[in-house]
């Protein structure tokens, strides 16, 4: 029997996916209107991964994210308010405006932050797992990385090390077919990154990353395995980013036809349909859900957009070293 969400759970997960989608759409609009500066990497289309991973974990499990970190940060528990404040560079943001779009961090919810040097977060997650193991903690660490980052040596080195040291890491390859512009077909030596698991002596699995129930149950299974066997696990989820790589991507490297095919597999639409067919949701409720999430995000974004509380230089400089050894 395929795993199915309960009524409440299904609606919660759908709501989380919509929050992620609308938050990112808002952020995209704010960047386009220059209300935000820098760059941003959206994961619109990958919401089944956001909502399928962290909610399937123990709240005390850790995650280490990437440059494309918004959805994961939200799914692990950060509020839109704290995230939007960070996007704006405000002092009430997740990193007081020092990190920005690529460096969302939320220790309260065991989100250890991200590396925007793609792949470099994977050994760091592995090191966190080493310390969890030393402390006999029942928890694990999820190391997110993309198909592009899978070519970094450090990722391979981390998998080998986690295997020989029996570390509680869930290597989570968020495979969206492309790095920046290059297709995994041309850059990755195997059809599936999960198929590399045996090469490290690591259990592995590839699943459909656009079906949130499949992702959720695969993560639950993987987490159970990691806790029981005290071994790492490699899970590859197949998805697609609807958006461009970053702010100014004209997407010349892929066809509109391919995009259309994936758009027809929108993970939010898919869950919505399932919930409706199970009688767990009706169209009107869904519309209300959309409206209330959109308007809440708009309200927060508008309110924060008018605020100007920012760190000053001395306050920022005070974070270079711990207070004890500051010069």
């Amino acid at each position: 029997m395929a795993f199915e969400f309960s009524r409440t759970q299904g609606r919660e997960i759908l709501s989380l996916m919509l929050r992620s989608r609308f938050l990112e759409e808002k952020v995209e609009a704010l960047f386009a209107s220059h209300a935000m500066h820098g760059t941003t990497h959206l994961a619109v289309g990958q919401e089944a991964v956001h909502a399928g991973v962290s909610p399937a974990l123990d709240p005390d499990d850790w995650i280490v994210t990437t440059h494309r970190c918004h959805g994961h940060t939200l799914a692990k528990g950060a509020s839109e308010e704290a995230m939007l404040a960070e996007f704006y560079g405000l002092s009430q943001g997740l990193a007081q405006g020092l990190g920005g779009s690529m460096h969302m961090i939320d220790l309260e919810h065991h989100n250890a932050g991200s590396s925007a040097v793609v792949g470099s977060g994977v050994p760091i997650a592995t090191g966190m797992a080493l310390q969890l193991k030393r402390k006999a903690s029942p928890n694990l660490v999820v190391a997110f990385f993309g198909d592009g980052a899978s070519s970094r040596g450090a990722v391979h080195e981390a998998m080998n090390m986690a295997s020989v040291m029996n570390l509680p890491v869930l290597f989570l390859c968020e495979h969206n077919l492309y790095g920046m512009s290059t297709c995994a077909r041309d850059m990755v030596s195997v059809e599936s990154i999960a198929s590399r698991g045996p090469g490290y002596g690591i259990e592995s699995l590839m699943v459909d990353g656009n079906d949130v129930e499949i992702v959720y149950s695969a993560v639950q299974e993987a987490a159970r395995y990691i806790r029981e066997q005290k071994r790492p696990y490699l899970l590859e989820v197949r998805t697609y980013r609807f958006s461009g790589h970053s702010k100014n991507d004209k997407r010349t490297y892929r066809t509109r036809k391919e995009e259309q095919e994936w758009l027809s597999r929108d993970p939010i639409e898919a869950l919505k349909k399932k919930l409706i067919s199970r009688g767990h949701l009706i169209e009107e409720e869904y519309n209300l859900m959309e409206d209330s999430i959109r308007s809440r995000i708009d309200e927060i974004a508008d309110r924060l957009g008018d605020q100007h509380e920012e760190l000053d230089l001395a306050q920022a400089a005070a974070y270079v070293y711990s207070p004890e050894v500051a010069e």
Partner: protein
Amino acid sequence: MIKLSYREAIRQAMMEEMERDPDVVLIGEDVGCYGGCFQVTPGMIERFGPRQVIETPVSEECIVGVAVGAAMMGMKPIVEVMYGDFSTLAADPLINHAAKIRFMSAGQQSVPLVYRTPMGSGTGAAAQHTQSLEALFTNVPGLKIVYPASPTDAKGLMKSAIRDPDPVLFFEHKLYGAEELVPQEDYLIPIGKADIKRQGSDVTIITYGKTVFTALEAARVLENDEISAEVLDLRSLRPLDTEAILASVKKTGRVVVLHEAPRFGGFAGEIVSTIVEDLEAFSALKAPVVRVCGLDMPTPFNKNLEQQLPPSSKRIIESVLAMFRG
């Protein structure tokens, strides 16, 4: 002469050299149809095909190592790394290998490699995409390091770098759209030669890369205070044009050394040492040498904070005025 942007000048140099010599090969991530992270390489794969424009996986350490190996076999690779910050990943093949292979083999092997990467802040890309890491490499014998500011210098230095038998690190600033008139004929700017970007007699501002523009801006303002500032653009950090530095210092007797990288342990220290170790230059000094550098902290994301990090023309002007107040 033809008007070219900084990125176009670099592209044109690479394309002309690739035309001339089929062993000149561009290697990097997303350098094909995407045109590279900063749009330096559009049109190149269309023109030269995948034999001469090689798109790679995200594997910086490996890409640069591969380029070292290919260079040993006669290729003249130009490796593009998207952000200078990722040079930390390329450090092993560059520092432990490219820089030493000629020496360790007693001259039997050479590594004619060009390593291109952009440095610096101003893009809102936060702490891991905005650093100026040149000083990590200037301390390594065996590497040549250039850091052009203008399109003309970029084109001429790129050609010299490609034709050089040794590994050359070619650092770029991110004002890729900055334009000027560039000679159309085949020309070279020699590695190791500084250039006076503005003649002056009262103070010398020594710098390289993007801060050349900041120095020129400061020099224009200082004119109002009747201070004539000379702007010396080093263009190459290693080898360093000691002669040009000393000559200018002896002429003006006052020196500001300027760069965006943090001050502590930065390349400015090398320049200051060069000056004070020379008796004539030292004796010519009418005021202590001043360093105006980036602040000693990682780049904050917040725009207002980020803008305060690199040296501004205001900071340069204040330092210069303070010298005259004595």
